[in-house]
């Protein structure tokens, strides 16, 4: 009941602050553009002609439609990976700062509800919010492409699930930043910063090899293992859609571990903090 109340509260807040509406508008625009910009001409199971934003595809011979669709979907999946995470962080960045605001946190904490329940209840609310939005965005792209081509590639939906899992880690990090700082700008900027910083770390071996100092090399390796694997997940999303192997479980495991540690730290700090 208490967790349910917090989930409902999270949704109400997202509705009232127009974050949910904003997410839906951006997602809907993306879907509309995709609907009208993607034109395919399929003859006997092969793509005879096609265009995106009026630009014709460069086709070689009788390209099977499945290959074209999965290739196209993989490109969209990579795009959605960036867009989905960007929007989700933006939509949930103010959650904890709004909760821990002086005068508001007192109203919540003075009720007979545990601090862990309170924070995790809001976390669950944010997760349901983002899952619904990602389902709309990824599900919409999937339905549009599938209806236009007749190819139903369920691996595209798995890629949506992978994006959601990666987002969980960033959400946990946002909760940690929110509990520590109570600042919405920081709660939004720092996950973006980590997302960007972690990108080149995929080549940590090469970067470390180019370092003069051993300490710097260790730091690069350390950062790689500690931070979420932004680049690997982007690559995995593409490969998953194309059916070229499983995602990197090590990358996924370390990213989820990062999220778990951040969420655990957020809960522990929230438990001890005086308001």
């Amino acid at each position, binding site marked *: 009941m208490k967790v349910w109340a917090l989930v409902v509260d999270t949704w109400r807040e997202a509705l009232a602050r127009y974050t949910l509406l904003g997410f839906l508008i951006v997602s809907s625009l993306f879907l509309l553009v995709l609907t009208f910009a993607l034109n395919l001409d399929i003859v006997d199971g092969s793509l005879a002609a096609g265009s995106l934003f009026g630009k014709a595809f460069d086709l070689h011979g009788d390209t099977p439609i499945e290959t074209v669709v999965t290739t196209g979907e993989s490109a969209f999946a990579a795009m959605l990976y960036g867009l989905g995470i960007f929007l989700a962080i933006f939509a949930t960045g103010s959650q904890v700062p709004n909760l821990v605001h002086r005068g508001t946190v007192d109203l919540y*904490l003075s009720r007979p509800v545990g601090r862990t329940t309170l924070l995790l209840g809001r976390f669950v609310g944010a997760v349901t919010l983002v899952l619904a939005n990602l389902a709309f965005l990824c599900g919409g792209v999937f339905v549009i492409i599938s209806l236009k081509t007749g190819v139903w590639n369920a691996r595209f939906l798995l890629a949506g699930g992978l994006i959601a899992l990666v987002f969980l880690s960033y959400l946990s990090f946002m909760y940690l930043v929110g509990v520590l700082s109570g600042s919405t700008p920081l709660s939004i900027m720092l996950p973006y910063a980590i997302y960007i910083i972690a990108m080149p770390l995929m080549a940590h071996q090469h970067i470390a090899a180019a370092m003069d100092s051993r300490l710097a090399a260790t730091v690069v390796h350390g950062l790689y293992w500690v931070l979420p694997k932004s680049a690997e997940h982007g690559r995995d999303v593409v490969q998953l859609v194309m059916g070229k192997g499983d995602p990197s479980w090590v990358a996924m495991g370390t990213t989820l571990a990062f999220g778990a540690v951040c969420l655990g730290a957020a809960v522990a700090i929230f438990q001890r903090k005086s308001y």
Partner: protein
Amino acid sequence: MSKEFRSWRRRVQALDGVSFSVRQGEVFGLLGGNGAGKTTLVKILLGLGRPTAGRVEVRGVDPRRTRARRRVGYLPEGHRFPGYLSGEAAMRLFGRLAGMDEARITARTSELLDLVGLGERGSDRISRYSKGMTQRLGLASALLDDPEVLFLDEPTDGVDPVGRRHIRDVLLAARERGTTIFINSHLLSEVERTCDRVGILHQGRLLREASVDDLTRPTRRFRIRLAEGQHAPPACLDRYRAAATNGHIDVEVPDLGTLNQLLDGLRGERLLIAEVSAQRAALEDVFIEMVREESAS
């Protein structure tokens, strides 16, 4: 119990060896100027903060424990209700967090919003409420779970005189039902009218804890009211260093004998005495005097 706020730059002793107890069913007022430590103390009593040293119990339980906050109401100072909720939705949210069942939340919400005069505005968003209205909503929210203990931090802050009177009546009704009430305020006249006992907090230290009657005990000052249109002769007043204002005679006497001599003098002048009343020390005077003495020492 003590509380020290530490940062890398400095340390602030917010509470220093504060010790007191509040009896069940009484209204206890905590008085103090700005920065005296009142809000810090209330937050510790509610488990929102933890003491640096010492022990706190509310109904025999450490307030940091979740069960200690069952049937405890709190109206924080400078509260910020989620503006995106309506008054009713806020009551529902906090009722659910208190573990109340839906039917009871619905019944209590309607009853309490009516009680605090928000019955007509319950479905409006809180962001459209005035300060006085949010304060009344705060009181309704604090009373939601029919609390056994009620903590109120500046409950009449931003409320007009009529609303203040209304809040006072609500609190007195809660006291009649046996609710223990803890009020933080610097509106001393309000405290004087509402509280059974008060504690005076200054710079984190509890200077005095006593009943309102003890603190505002009768003084040697008396007010004499003469019959309509009658005036005491100045010579008579000068003899006792009495002052006449607006038909009253205010006088401070060393003993009752002197007071009666003055009354005899007035009667001797064939003046009709309508009322003689002993003046009590105002809580405000006691508070200011105590704080001044402490600051001087």
